[in-house]
């Protein structure tokens, strides 16, 4: 039960943060050529968040108290990366989506090793979302994320932030 709690809490926080990141990116690049692409990815994240809201109520999981913080931090990250240009936004997307896919993968492993039958529905949902995030990651690469200014520095910094966010949201 404690494991499921953590999984749902951190995933909920993650989708919430991702939503805010795309919102920030749209605020800056909404009217540019990258607008439609970002909007589409954002819509998928909105669906993800809705699903996790439902799961949270169903499993009676406490949301992380850091949500207001992720609200602001996500938006700032999205807007900030978008200010570096379209490629900067794509680089941010690649970094975040890669972190999230890895994270979903390790959750899938945990559930499969634990009790795959009992958590069949949850497993299915996480697998589907993992595939979606992977797709976002690839879209980001297709749109020249790697050509962004200081790509590797940016990517490392963002992924470090994601790791910290995951660690905290699982617990607090």
């Amino acid at each position, binding site marked *: 039960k404690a494991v499921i709690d953590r999984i749902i809490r951190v995933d*909920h926080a993650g989708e919430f943060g991702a939503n805010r990141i795309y919102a920030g990116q749209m605020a800056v690049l909404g009217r540019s050529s990258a607008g439609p692409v970002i909007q589409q990815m954002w819509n998928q994240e909105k669906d993800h968040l809705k699903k996790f809201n439902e799961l949270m109520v169903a499993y009676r999981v406490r949301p992380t108290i850091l949500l207001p913080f992720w609200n602001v931090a996500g938006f700032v990250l999205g807007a900030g990366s978008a200010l570096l240009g379209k490629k900067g936004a794509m680089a941010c997307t690649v970094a975040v989506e890669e972190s999230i896919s890895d994270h979903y993968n390790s959750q899938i492993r945990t559930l499969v090793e634990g009790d795959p039958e009992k958590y069949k529905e949850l497993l299915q949902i996480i697998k589907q979302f993992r595939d979606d995030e992977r797709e976002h990651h690839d879209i980001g690469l297709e749109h020249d994320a790697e050509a962004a200014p200081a790509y590797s520095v940016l990517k490392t910094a963002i992924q470090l932030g994601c790791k910290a966010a995951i660690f905290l949201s699982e617990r607090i």
Partner: protein
Amino acid sequence: VVRWQLSPPQRPLQASAVLRRVSDEHKKEPLASSSQQQFDSHPADHQPGQEPQGPDPSYTGQGSQESEDYESEEQLQHRILTAALEFVPEHGWTAEAIAEGAKALGLSAAAAGMFQSDGSQLILHFLSQCNTKLSELLEQEQKLVQQGEAEKKPIDQFLRDAVEARLRMVIPYLERWPQALSILLMPHNIPSSLSLLSSMIDDILHYAGDQSTDINWYTRRAVLTGIYNTTELVMMQDSSPDFEDTWRFLENRIADAMKMGDTANQVQSTGEAIVQGLMGAAVTIKNLTGLNQRR
């Protein structure tokens, strides 16, 4: 029969020594656990007085020494504490009450040595029982509503009824309750008492239909906890018939809480209205001074 008279004093020791490994598996199902071990349903919780006395069908006397009681230590403690509650009005939340409870079950008073001497476990056991009863009550109510046999209550009434139901469980022990609360406030008890309190509040809000997944999850629980605690304190000093003053206090606090939610919205919409007014004023001034015109 002779064996029976010898065994009761040994039982607490036996239970601990022999059955520690059983205790984790059979926490909540004393009947099921016994049936897994070849005996008929062991009346663990229902007939505490009968066990050591008559020809109990579970103990045909043919079992070997080890199969005498397959009750785990935790179940035994549970039974003793439940029996001890009866003696709380007289002895308070103390080791004496626990000793009396053990004696009522036909066990030696030394069984009280299994527990902490300050009576905390007795109080926590009581709280946990009350919370379980409340959960069951709310679950049943929910079933009735789902089956269409009852009306869904408006949320303020739901909260009021739930808190009242839970507080009423304390009434039989009200005289000794201040003692209980002060024991619960001791540092080593705070984690357990807080956890019981928060799970109770979470239960109430869950059955009330709370589906918040943001910071409201925290604010609602904090508000309800505050209401519960203050109402509990009021109840302890209330001498009105059937505590009507307490229930009125509760009603008022809940009404306040409902209004607070509305007020936050009102403040926000007022703020927005003010901003719009200022923007409108700025545009008007710009028009008047001709700054808006492109010449």
